[in-house]
């Protein structure tokens, strides 16, 4: 398909601007003027609409295809959430920061406050900041909170390390590293969780935090989690919970109850807000009482009369992690999702997410190697090692699925499983949809034996076949010249 710039015709416009009702200002001094207008597209409104409508049709999406991308919780996004979020479109965030401005923002500040309370209850935390703009941004915020906590206790110089299991999301070590920590990685044991003995050996008083995902990226709940927390705390380290997999445990177990001190929640995963082709997400961070003094500013607080106020100049706070109050539009959707589903609805979400993952696991077990064969939570991780005997890789199976109309599961993650295929169906898929997917996965396994070349050749039904990624990386052609 042509680029929008290749459809451009000089002089064409996509929108009529309002006519000016004021006198023209004098021209900018030459030294401040740009010499030539930026080379943006020049297209009519219809050209524009056709271009982007046709582009959209080159995507798989939750609304068009089963999308069991493990670790990403690609559940259905209720349409009413879009309508709810649009209600807040005209509200300027700066209004709340004007003197006396909070009076005019009680609705939005109240919603953020309530959302914080609901998330605190779901996760077992004492207070939540809604400022972080994505999961990884929440991780960084959380680690900075931990660092401020240690500094306040006179331990800034001593606490140099953050411990992560080797099964963790890549964002965990990356977030801790950009926040100034060195990383200690602990291997996974044969039972699918962080090796307890190696963990004990790694723990010293120099560890600032232990970052865990629970259930982990293998979809397994760590039965030793309380023991791990206790060991971490005995060394003065805090426990960080990566909430990426929270969809598995709502109402069943609260991270705060098992010893976690800081948590981020991915609203775009567990709480039903759309993923937007790569964001916007939202990553609120919950903390235990001891960390509240360090929460980013402005912090929304409630006075004795139930009025919402802003704390803006707490000297102990880590400062600001984003310009305003976070991705408000995303939070409006998550809030609507939580109040709509309610207590019973959220419990049902976790139950059926876990039911669906176990169902797929059992059905596919005879065809794909299951490296950790036990009850999983919301996702299951297979290996394509049996298929590899026929020269077929996980990526080949992924491309075969595309031809059959399925977005592939996450492949090659977690890195500790060779040829990993990580399947997360979520609770919103019907049994019928899963049975159809299972049939195609079985077909892929059989084709791997009978006709491996067919898998190497996939996909064949898409507008393009497999792309030359080496060429892209070598040439670095990242913008259209001209």
């Amino acid at each position, binding site marked *: 398909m042509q680029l929008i710039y290749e459809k451009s015709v000089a002089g064409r416009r996509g929108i009529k601007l309002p006519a000016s009702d004021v006198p023209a200002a004098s021209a900018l001094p030459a030294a401040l003027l*740009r010499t030539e207008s930026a080379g943006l597209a020049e297209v009519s409104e219809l050209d524009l609409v056709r271009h982007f409508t046709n582009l959209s049709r080159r995507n798989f999406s939750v609304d068009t295809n089963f999308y069991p991308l493990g670790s990403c919780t690609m559940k259905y996004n209720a349409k009413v959430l879009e309508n709810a979020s649009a209600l807040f479109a005209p509200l300027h965030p700066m*209004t709340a920061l004007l003197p006396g401005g909070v009076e005019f923002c009680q609705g939005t500040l109240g919603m953020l406050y309530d959302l914080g309370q609901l998330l605190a209850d779901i996760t077992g935390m004492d207070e939540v900041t809604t400022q972080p703009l*994505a999961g990884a941004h929440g991780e960084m915020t959380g680690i900075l909170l931990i660092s401020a906590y240690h500094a306040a206790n006179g331990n800034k110089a001593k606490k140099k390390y953050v411990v992560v299991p080797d099964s963790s999301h890549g964002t965990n070590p990356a977030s801790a590293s950009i926040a100034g920590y060195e990383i200690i990685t602990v291997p996974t044991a044969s039972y699918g969780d962080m090796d307890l003995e190696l963990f004990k050996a790694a723990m010293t008083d120099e560890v600032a935090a232990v970052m865990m995902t629970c259930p982990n990226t293998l979809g397994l709940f760590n039965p030793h989690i309380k023991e791990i927390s206790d060991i971490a705390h005995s060394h003065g380290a805090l426990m960080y919970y990566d909430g990426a997999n929270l969809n598995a445990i709502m109402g069943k177990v609260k991270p705060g109850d098992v010893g976690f001190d800081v948590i981020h929640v991915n609203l775009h995963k567990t709480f039903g807000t759309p993923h937007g082709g790569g*964001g916007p*997400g939202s990553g609120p961070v919950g903390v235990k009482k001891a960390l509240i003094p360090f929460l980013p500013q402005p912090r929304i607080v409630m006075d004795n009369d139930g009025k919402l106020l802003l704390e803006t100049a707490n000297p102990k706070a880590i400062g600001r992690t984003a310009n305003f109050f976070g991705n408000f539009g995303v939070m409006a959707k998550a809030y609507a999702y939580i109040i709509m589903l309610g207590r019973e609805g959220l419990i049902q979400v976790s139950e059926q997410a876990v039911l669906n993952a176990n169902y797929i696991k059992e059905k596919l077990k005879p065809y794909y190697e299951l490296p950790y064969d036990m009850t999983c939570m919301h996702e299951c991780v297979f290996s394509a090692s049996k298929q590899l005997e026929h020269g077929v890789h996980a990526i080949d199976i992924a491309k075969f699925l595309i031809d059959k109309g399925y977005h592939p599961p996450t492949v090659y993650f977690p890195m500790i499983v060779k040829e990993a295929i990580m399947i997360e169906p979520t609770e919103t898929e019907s049994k019928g949809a899963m049975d159809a997917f299972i049939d195609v996965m079985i077909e892929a396994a059989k084709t791997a034996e009978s006709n491996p070349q067919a898998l190497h050749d996939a996909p064949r039904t898409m507008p393009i076949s497999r792309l030359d990624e080496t060429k892209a990386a070598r*040439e670095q052609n*990242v913008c259209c010249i001209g």
Partner: protein
Amino acid sequence: MNDSHYCPHTPEEIQEMLSVIGVASVEDLFAPIPSELRAKTFNLPSGMSEFETFGRMQEIASENSGNMLNFIGGGFYDHIIPAVVDHLSGRAEFYTAYTPYQPECSQGTLQALFEYQTAICRLTGLDVSNASLYDGGTSCAEAAMMSLRITGRTKIVVDGCVSPFSRQVLKTYLFNLNVDVVEIPPLDGLLNRAELAAVLDDSVAAVLVQNPNFFGSIEDFTALADQVHGAGALLIGSVYPISLGLVKSPGEMGMDIAVGDGQSLGNPLSFGGPSFGFIAAKKKLIRNMPGRIVGETVDRNGKRGYVLTLQAREQHIKRHKATSNICSNQGLCALRGLIFLSSVGKEGLADLARLNRDKAEYAKGQLAKISGVTVLQSAVTFNEFTLSLPKQAATVVTALLAHGIAAGVPLGQYYEGSENCMVVTVTEKRTRKEIDLFVKELEVALCN
């Protein structure tokens, strides 16, 4: 019990699935969680219907004053959004997809991001762009961290005229690293160049400026770029994209990295987000860029296509050695930015910028006629300017809020000694009638 239409199984289907798994009940699937760790309370309210949920959200929205006449900016701006932006970005094929890890079934998102990167390069006059960052403040911080990686140095110099919010975000990102952040206090709403020259030594990784700055002033940083390069440092400019319809681009000024908030490009105010951050740089810096980057390539048949590229920089491959921790960015907001820019187009963006400046200059002239009100700076401005009032700006702003006017951002809380000053923003959406009303109301407020 199935009271949610989002969890579709019938009781019979659940039984069937349980027997395949070989357990008696759904509860058995949670057996791996030790019983002593199970949640003792779960106090959420009961759920409600879609109709009731939307009603509750309407109630919340009505508790805000939605009809404020905005003369405030401070990083977020009240601009027109062409109807096509909502409709096209509202295609579920865009908004219910995720990061395009599988390029064959994600060419829609990938090509759109390539076109977005192209728009950002052309707008900023730089060579390479990524596929978006979170927002304006975090993009300043990401650019600063990029300069630390590139130069191996340990100091960031920041013009005090940069948004106080962005400066706070920058300091928060860096506080636990061994990095000095040196702020240069503003001089009459402009960069204090003498003081900057005094601190520009070989420990400086980058100088961060903003154009137009928080006071609204526009400056030519061309000479500064040479000076900064002379010290072996990088010049980072945070820019307001609408102003680039008119104002000399970061590339033309010789800047190395340009960043900013993309909210003004087709994203609603939405109480502060979501918007997107952008970052563009000179080509040689690409390997140190944070976040996703889309590149052009060909498929097995030589057909053009797009993929995520240079992924070896990223956290899902490099883990703690990645150039940043970013995973999700603000893809859909960047798409809105692209649709906005493609709708207004090449000359349309210049017209839009001119319209903003015309309205602001008109308002500036009218407001300056009020007795005791003066325009603070003599510098050239775009669509924001700073007024000095005969009394505390905070008092005046509070008074006008009650009349439905957000008159400006008082500077006292951000700059000591500026208690009587406020920054006024006038976008193309403000009519002459609204501006005249504002002038009249301000005059009355100053008399009281």
